[in-house]
Every structure is written in C-alpha cells, then in structure tokens.
C-alpha cells in the first residue's frame, strides 16, 4: 500500500496541517530544517540508522548514521559561527557531490544562515554573477574548484571567507582562504540551534530567465512542510527504503528531494559522485539494493540508448518505485521502464520557484504515459489564457500553467529583484512560464515553455546569459542563442554568430567558441552547435528576431515577419 492512498480521499480531506502535525510543528514554534533533518530523527530513536551511503570516484565509500550527520552539521555550523557567520548571511556551497556538501547544508541552516548551493561545474562568470547578486559572505569549496574562485574573489567585496574542505598542506592558501577538515575537527556534540521561524530564509537557489541575469529564488524554513509531505506521498518513501535521488544539490531537486525530503523523514539515501554511465548506475542500484529511484528524463533516455542488454546484467529487482523530474517525460521512456523494471517512471512537475512537486502521477494512480499527472492535494492549478490571464474552461485547450499562491514552499521573493518577482503573478495566479493542456480526467499534458529559456537535460539556460558571454569572445560581433532539439537532452544550446572583420568562420573557431562558453559559464550553457552567419535576422528597429531562428531549428512556421528588416 502506498503512503498516498486514494486521490479523491486525499483531495477531499487535505490540509497542510497534516504535515505540521506529523512534524509536531505548531504555528509560531522554532522551525529549523537542519535540526529537523538530523537532531529530530535522532530524538525519534533513529540515531544509529544509516542516513547516507556515499560512493565517490575510485570506489571511495563512506557511511553516515543520522547521529553522524547531526554531529557533522554541528561541527560545520560551529566552525562557521566561530568565523562570525551569523543568521541570514549567505554561505555558498560550491562542491561536487561529496559528503561535505550535504553536511554543510545542514550546518549552515543550523546557525540560521542562508544556504546558496551552486553547481560545481559552473565557470567563473556564472559563479561571479550569483555571488555578487547574493552578496555572499562565505563560500565552502574544494581544492579542484579553487582556481575559479581565485579568478573572481577580488571583484567580490562581500566575500570574506573561502573555506577549503580538502586542503593539503603542501599547497599554499591565499588571501581569504581557510582550510577546514571535517575529519580533523573536534566533533561538536551539541550546538545551539539558531531559533529560525517559519518565515526565516533558508535556501537561495539561482534560476535563469529569458532576459537579465539569473534570479536568486528565496525559500524559507516553512518549505519543509511541503517538501516533507510531497516526499512521503509522491516519492512514497517508507521506513525501510533505500532511496537514490540522482540530482545535484546545485539545483533545487538536489536539495528539496536530495536532502530535505528524505532526511526529514528519516530515510536512508545514497549518493553516487561520479559521471554518468549505464553500467555504473545499474551497478550502484544493485550494490545498494535501491528501492526508490528519482531521476531525470535525460538520464532515462541515456539508459535507453545504452541498450536493454545492459539492464539484464544486474539485479534490479529491489526497485519498487520510480519517479522523474526536470523536463517532460516522454511516453516512450515510461513504456520502456514498464518493460525493463515492470513499473513506470512517475513524472513530477515543479520548479525552483515552487520548491516542491506541484503536478504528478501519484503512486497507485493510473499513469497516462506522456502526461504530467494531476495537481498535488492543496495545490490549485489551472491554465490561463495567454492574453487575458483568465482561467480556461474548455477541456484540451492549451494555456499557461498557473497556481494559486500560498503553498508552504512557494518562493518568498527573488533576491534583490522585487520587480521580477511581481511579474510572476497575474490576476492572483503564479505563472509557471510553461504551457500545457488538461484532459477530461484532470491530467496535465506538457506543451512547452512560454519563453525563450532553454531546458537542456532538465536545467534552464538563459539565452541572454550565453549571448552576453559570447560577445566577450574577440571574434564575435553579434550572437543569437536558441534551443535546438536533441534526442537525449530534449533541447541543447545553439548559437548563431556573426564575426568581426578579420575573422573567418572555420571548425577550429567553432570549437574555440564552444570551449570559451563551457569554461566561462558551464558545460550546460556551451553551444553544442555554432552556425556562422553573414547577418542575423533583425526587426527594422534592430532587435534580433530570435524566434525566426528558433522556428528554423524546430521546423516550425515562422509566423509574422512583417517587422523583419529588409536588405
């Protein structure tokens, strides 16, 4: 029997206070996610239960009990507090998926500071704009990422501490850098937890939009209520489960469902810090007898490409529930998982801004392959007309996915960007920026984005950010960036470029430009195709008509071109 039960019953009786009651939280109490994910689980008698099985490259294995993660969080929190880090200071976590990343998350929250997790593959420019925007006071990182931090630290006056978790004494530390070794630090058994309340800020995740720099999505400790209950009901985590969320905590899935959800429920989870390979992933499931697996369509399609015969080489019978997030889950992937694992991947739809799963195929509910499923109880979702922003009444008509504000993990603001935050609401609805239809049974069917943001492998990339970075390359005169269809990643970045006088289009220059963006921004933002053009299509007022290039890539009608500049 699933935790969720019957949809109709859950909808009828739903109140968020169900989660508050289970978490023994009352309005006005202290609410600290770091404490709930570790100390409280220990107080419930699970101190010696395994919280984390970690496996890194080269076969490095580590195991942590809930008491271990409680003490580690205390130790890191104490270290930060001794440095002078106080409540609401921003502390960036810039690490690969090593244990210190997960444990620092708890430590930062325990002292009331705000966690700013950033994807460790970000290049220096991506890192800079996010640290500058957040006025980050400390960054916790590894030696292998230190060179990127060193390139930008002098441009960040608010950055006071660069904490290196794996420093070796043979190397020299520079300005602002401090070595911190968790294993060499005296363990802190008891730490005074900062008395954060429901509305105290907790996590600051950055997300990309069509225009402007990335926005810092501010969440609060009360997000726990949604994250706890959606983990329990949608991912169906139960006492004896061994859970694997493949997302990196640099992105919201990796924190909401890779840390907060499972640990607040006292569930054992696994982390594999290694690159993707079908054999490595199946072997990992086999070795740890993983029961619940939360992954992404890109990964699923890569596994499909690796071939069915690879699946047969491993014992994957432990799997009892599968879920997916990040981009639309195509029906072929659902049917493939039924064939290979005898159960479907359950699609989940949500965003950095929503903080928790909003629409999903629930355990036990009829899965319609290709559909996003239905709204979570307590979430009022609809489709809005793109012109009037009024709810659409007709079944099957495409509209903008929108939600009635007020669920516990809804973002509270964009950091230092109130104007952008207000733009996310129309007629009292939160606009997701995605389009879909709803069928007669209330299932949502994803259509696409309502803007130019590129969803590649489940990660959003801003065309503006890539175009701006391209202009810094000495050969580039103008650029336009659009999504290009891709079999595995759904979309990838494609750049259209005009060159400055004296530069000639050639394959080596194409590679140079790709690598330039990869290092400056990230591998996700790297154009996987570059097309050199004599001129870019523009309106008569000189604005680049990105939509024409997009239509060309997708084989779509180009629509109205009355404003196109003539030769």
């Amino acid at each position, binding site marked *: 029997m699933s935790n969720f039960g019957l949809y109709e019953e859950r909808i009828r009786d739903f109140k968020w206070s169900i989660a508050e009651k289970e978490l023994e939280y009352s309005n006005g109490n202290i609410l600290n996610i770091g404490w709930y994910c570790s100390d409280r689980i220990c107080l419930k008698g699970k101190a010696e239960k395994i919280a984390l099985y970690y496996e890194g*490259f*080269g076969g490095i294995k580590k195991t942590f009990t809930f008491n271990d993660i409680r003490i580690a969080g205390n130790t890191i929190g104490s270290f930060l507090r001794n440095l002078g880090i106080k409540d609401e200071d921003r502390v960036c976590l810039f690490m*690969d998926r090593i244990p210190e990343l997960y444990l620092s998350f708890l430590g930062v929250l325990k002292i009331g500071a705000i966690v700013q997790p950033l994807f460790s*593959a970000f290049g220096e420019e991506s890192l800079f704009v996010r640290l500058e925007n957040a006025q980050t006071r400390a960054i916790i990182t590894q*030696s*292998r*990422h*230190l*060179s990127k931090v060193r390139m930008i630290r002098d441009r960040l006056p608010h950055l006071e501490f660069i904490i290196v978790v794996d420093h070796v004494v043979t190397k020299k530390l520079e300005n602002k850098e401090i070595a911190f070794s968790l294993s060499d630090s005296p363990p802190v058994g008891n730490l005074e937890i900062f008395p954060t309340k429901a509305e105290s800020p907790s996590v600051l995740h950055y997300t990309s939009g069509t225009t402007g720099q990335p926005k810092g999505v501010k969440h609060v400790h009360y997000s726990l209520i949604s994250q706890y209950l959606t983990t329990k009901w949608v991912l169906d985590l139960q006492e004896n489960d061994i859970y694997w969320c493949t997302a990196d905590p640099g992105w919201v899935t990796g924190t909401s469902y890779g840390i907060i959800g499972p640990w607040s429920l006292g569930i054992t989870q696994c982390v594999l*810090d*290694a*690159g*993707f*390979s*079908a*054999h*490595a992933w199946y072997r990992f499931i086999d070795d740890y007898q993983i029961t619940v697996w939360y992954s992404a369509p890109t990964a699923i399609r*890569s596994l499909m*490409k*690796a071939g069915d015969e690879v699946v047969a080489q491993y014992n994957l019978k432990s799997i009892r529930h599968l879920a997916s997030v990040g981009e639309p889950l195509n029906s072929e992937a659902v049917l493939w998982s039924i064939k290979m694992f005898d159960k479907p991947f359950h699609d989940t739809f949500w965003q950095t801004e929503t903080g928790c799963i909003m629409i999903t195929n629930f355990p036990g509910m009829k899965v319609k392959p290709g559909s996003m499923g239905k709204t979570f109880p307590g979430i009022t979702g609809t489709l809005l007309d793109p012109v009037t922003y009024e709810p659409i009444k007709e079944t099957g008509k495409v509209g903008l996915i929108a939600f009635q504000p007020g669920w516990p993990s809804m973002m509270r603001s964009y950091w230092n960007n109130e104007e952008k935050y207000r733009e996310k609401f129309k007629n009292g609805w939160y606009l997701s920026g995605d389009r879909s239809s709803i069928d007669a049974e209330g299932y949502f069917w994803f259509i696409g984005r309502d803007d130019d943001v590129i969803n*590649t*492998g489940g990660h959003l990339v801003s065309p503006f950010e890539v175009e701006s970075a391209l202009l810094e390359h000495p050969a580039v005169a103008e650029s336009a960036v659009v999504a290009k269809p891709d079999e*595995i*990643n759904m979309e990838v970045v494609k750049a259209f470029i005009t060159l400055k006088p004296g530069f000639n289009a050639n*394959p*080596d220059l*194409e*590679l140079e430009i*790709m*690598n330039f963006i*990869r290092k400056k921004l990230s*591998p*996700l933002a*790297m154009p*996987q195709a570059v097309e050199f053009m004599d001129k870019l299509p523009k309106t008569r007022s000189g604005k680049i008509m990105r939509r024409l290039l997009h239509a060309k890539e997708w084989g779509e009608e180009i629509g109205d071109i009355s404003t196109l500049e003539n030769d």
Partner: protein
Amino acid sequence: MEDIKELVRSYIVKEYLEEDEEITFDTPLISSGYVDSFSMVSLLVFLENKFKIKIPPSKATPEAFDSVNKIVELVNQYINK
C-alpha cells in the same frame, strides 16, 4: 599511435581538468566525472577537426569516450576511411 594518444591526452588535460589534475591513458574520463556528457560534445568536435574524420552519433557514447585509449581506438576506426 603514441603521438595520437599523447595529443588527445594533453588536449583533455588542458581543456577539461582543473589545475594540478593529471590522467593516464587509462584513466576513466566520463565515469569519473572529469568530462561530463555535455562537454563530451566539444571533445568530439576536437577529434573530428583534428583528425579530419566524422564519428557517427551512435558511436560517440560515454563508454567509447571513457579513456584516452578507448578514444584513440575509436578514432583509429575512422582515420583513412
């Protein structure tokens, strides 16, 4: 053969590894995380440009790119074809 191996190895070290990191011809590249699946595309473009070859997408798999030795084995299948 050795020249090609060293060429590929030094390119990977220069482009994808962080300061002070080193690899051998057998070091796992993709499964270790040194080269991610997105960056693999730029490595493919490098190989195609450098050796004037075309590697079909179906052959450019994470497994085929998982070490310098494996990459050179793949490249050799298309050189002089």
